[in-house]
């Protein structure tokens, strides 16, 4: 049994917003794999919960009229991985969330929860950053959209305002068009683990596959929140596809990342892995995009 003060179960998004306004101290619970664990630990013991678990309208992946890919916030990791639209347009996201925990966690964990907990190690987060995802929030004043990089305020804190719940993650067409990416989860074992470092790279190549038109890279656990390595991205843009570029791109990520020393891993070790992972993920992305190195 959980030490919760009260449970409010939302019937739909509007009801969730109303409950948020009525119970501003209450915590939102989606899948439960974070909130309930922290409640058991004692961290969130005794709090009120607003459960949005039953809002099936927030599940599923769809394509909007303008080509924007819409991922409902309660879509579970396993459903994202299996979704044909994800597989077609942003396969790397499906691959990344297929490395969260284990199968049961991927059945219960949601992409909304994974971003709203504000954790830098979340397996979806670096890919969503690298693909310029947009977070859709619904509140008393309607819908508000925000680039994911601005959604994260600091470790464990995201920009969800009074009365709001996150309702979708959006990937705009320009972000995924002709773009191919690769995610490397660096962890201490091959399942049931959190990332020591997450590296997500994607590239768009010129029509002849010889030139990098756009390269993006984002990391988890290279700073207090997921972050982009813009220096490396700028360095690669417009450059011919070569192994030297892969090497230079990888070295350049050091300019923007700032991992910390913790008992989980040392800063210099994380830096080292970030460079090596950036190189490997870049090479793999280029290959997926049809380029040759």
């Amino acid at each position, binding site marked *: 049994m959980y030490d919760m003060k009260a449970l409010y179960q939302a019937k739909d998004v509007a009801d969730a917003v109303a409950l948020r306004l009525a119970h501003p101290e209450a915590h939102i619970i989606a899948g439960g794999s974070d909130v309930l664990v922290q409640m058991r630990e004692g961290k969130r*013991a005794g709090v009120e919960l607003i459960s949005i678990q039953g809002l099936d309208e927030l599940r599923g992946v769809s394509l909007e009229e303008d080509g924007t890919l819409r991922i409902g916030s309660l879509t579970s990791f396993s459903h994202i991985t299996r979704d044909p639209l994800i597989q077609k347009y942003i396969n790397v996201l499906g691959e990344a969330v297929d490395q969260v925990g284990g199968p049961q966690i991927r059945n219960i964990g949601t992409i909304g929860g994974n971003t709203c907990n504000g954790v830098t190690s979340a397996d979806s987060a670096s890919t969503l950053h690298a693909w310029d995802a947009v977070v859709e929030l619904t509140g008393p004043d309607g819908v508000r959209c925000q680039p994911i990089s601005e959604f994260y305020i600091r470790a464990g804190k995201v920009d969800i305002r009074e009365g709001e719940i996150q309702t979708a993650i959006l990937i705009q067409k320009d972000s995924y068009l002709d773009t191919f990416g690769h995610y490397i989860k660096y962890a*201490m074992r091959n399942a049931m683990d959190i990332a020591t470092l997450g590296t997500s790279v994607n590239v768009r190549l010129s029509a002849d596959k010889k030139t990098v038109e756009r390269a993006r890279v984002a990391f988890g656990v290279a700073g207090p929140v997921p972050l982009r390595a813009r220096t490396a991205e700028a360095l690669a843009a417009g450059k011919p596809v070569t192994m030297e570029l892969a090497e230079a791109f990888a070295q350049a990520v050091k300019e923007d990342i700032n991992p910390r020393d913790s*008992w989980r891993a*040392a800063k210099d*070790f994380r830096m*080292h*892995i970030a460079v090596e992972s950036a190189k490997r993920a870049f090479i793999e992305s280029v290959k997926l995009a049809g380029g040759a190195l």
Partner: protein
Amino acid sequence: MSNSVGKSVTRVDAYDKATGRAKYTDDLCDRSALVARICHSTIAHGVVKAIDTTEAESIPGVVRVLTCFDVPDIPFPTAGHPWSTDPHHQDVADRLLLNRHVRYYGDEVAVVIAEDEVAAAQGVRALKVEYDELPFVLDVQKAMEQDAPQLHEEYPGNVLAHTDIRKGDYETARQEPGLIKVEGWYDTPTVQHCHIENHGCFAYEEAGRIVVVTSTQIPHIVRRVVGQALGIPWGKVRIIKPYIGGGFGNKQDALYEPLCAWCSTQVGGRLVKLECSREETFVSNRVRHAIRTHIISYVRPDGTLVARKFEAFSNQGAYASHGHGIVAKGMGAFPQLYPCDNLECDAWTVFTNRPSAGAMRGYGIPQAMFAGESHIDDICRAIGMEPLEFRRKNLMPVGYVDGFSKNELYSDTFNQCMEKGMAAIGYEQKLREYQNQTGPVRRGVGMAVFWYNTAVWPISLESSSCRMVLNQDGSLQFQTGETEIGQGCDTAYSQMVADAVGVPLKDVHVVSSQDTDVTPFGTGAYASRQTYIGGFSIVQTAAALRERILNIAHEQTRMPVSNLDLVDGQIVRKSDGRVLKSLGDLATESLYSMEHSQHITAETTAQIKTNAYSFGCSFAEVEVDIPMCKVKLLDIVNVHDCGTLINPALAEAQVHGGMSMAIGYGLSEELKFDEKTGKPLNNNLLDYKLSTFMDHPTLQAAFVENAEPTSPYGTKALGEPPACSPAPAIRNAILQATGVAIDCCPITPHVLYRRFKEAGLIQD
């Protein structure tokens, strides 16, 4: 006579476990139970000044708060050792039910008993504990320094025990000209057993006695410890052990049974349940001793060992538990495995402010083998000799007899096991193939052997008792004090009983659960002893039962006993092989006889004054991704000579499990502590990296079967041996792949990063 032993019969508990019907401790607890939760210290060392219980007591549902100021002042031991009537051989009694002097982060200071788990947890959080903090020490050698914080008054300098072994003249021998000196320090980590069922128990009073139902490996020992801890006669205590979800040595200690029993007595004998959370299991149960080992070997260029020094520092943690026995066993293996004429060996067991270390699968041997077998490969590197060649030259020879245990190596076990392992992994070809690699990703093969001995004689008592009760239909129940903890002893015993009595396996019913009120005395599951030790009492009791049966057969058939036999559940006349009657008919007639009614039973105790070596080896193949600082285990094989296999399928399964644990030991598992506070950092199954389904290659288990002459079934230890040699084999494979000799386990990416950087294999 053998029909069943040696066959891979299905586990006797398989159906119940495959259907979820098998009852474990919590399944048996009535839902009306009060729930007890422990308040653990949040400092590593200090004295509790006061505990304010007011707020906790006001929480609705909280029934009783008990603190370290309330407990009886009776220090008690917890180790799952047979009791000794000689006070000098008794376990160290250094615990109270709750402690005012707290010695590790997680020590027990109070307990809240409540109507449900939420109220109990709230009560624990509401306690205000005031401490006088004391300095603490986590490192074993720092704890031996002069100004180190002192944990136990009775043990100045924190040394629980020091023992040594001397042979020949080390100092003189090492002066021989031309010797090559090889020296190494080897560190092994604090790890935890991680049985999937946490320890839990429940207690209540009945007829003026205390009953504890508990997840334990050692019910009869727990009975004694509960009696000691509560200061009540042992006969006032009844322990019941149902199925348990693994133990691996953690449950070879009295854990929270004494506290739970005492809690029940403090609430009028009401039913009280005390279950450990996973976080508590990691910290406040037992862990495996972290041992630091220093080895110096002086070797001739031809590989002859001339003089050796061995020093081991065993991190006991806060309380004595199994204490010095662990490192002493590891040190004992050193002179035996590679005999050498000139030796200086010392072992220290030292208190530190870490969780208490107790028994864990291998009892000092995984640590000793990691150090010893890593060192052997370091010697091989230094003198340019192949690891197999060195071992063939130096390993314990056939016919070796240990003066203390009188154990003898009867067969050419090591060579036979190594041959089998080499073939299984393709060792020689790979060893050549993987020489002189360059490039970022390299492969290597490595191996290690292990030494293990079965059971605890002559250090402690070895005895087992067995009872057999014949039913009217010719089937029988048997009981022993030895416990099924997942390893399959109920099945192996059933096979032995069937053959020894002369009945079909289907007619043998094991009483799986131990209840100290009715189960014959036996000390339980540890030291890989049960198949070996239980075999003696089964054979002896079966003989007694057969004698009774044949005497009754004589009464009923008038045939002389000397011409009667019991074969496959039938009374047979030996001279012509005629079946005279079934055992069922005999038993029915005997029980209901108007002339001479008899209930046919037998019960005996066997004391065992032998012990048996159980040896083998591991071979591992790895791929090392140097820039990523990662090791991938490609292949691994364990080969064991545990004598004659009683049940080959279950034996193989045992080996798989031990290998898995040892792979984690070698590559990923370590319980970590904050240097600044002594707080455990990763006491959960997410942050503590035991192997998952995706962290293993196919596990290969192979056997060499040299029947053990001292055992009635030719068997010897197999429970713990599989966990002893894979870690050094993996370490030695990494050495072959990269040339980097790692001096600690687990060999994590963090370790590899440092060592590869030092070796110039990676640059930043």
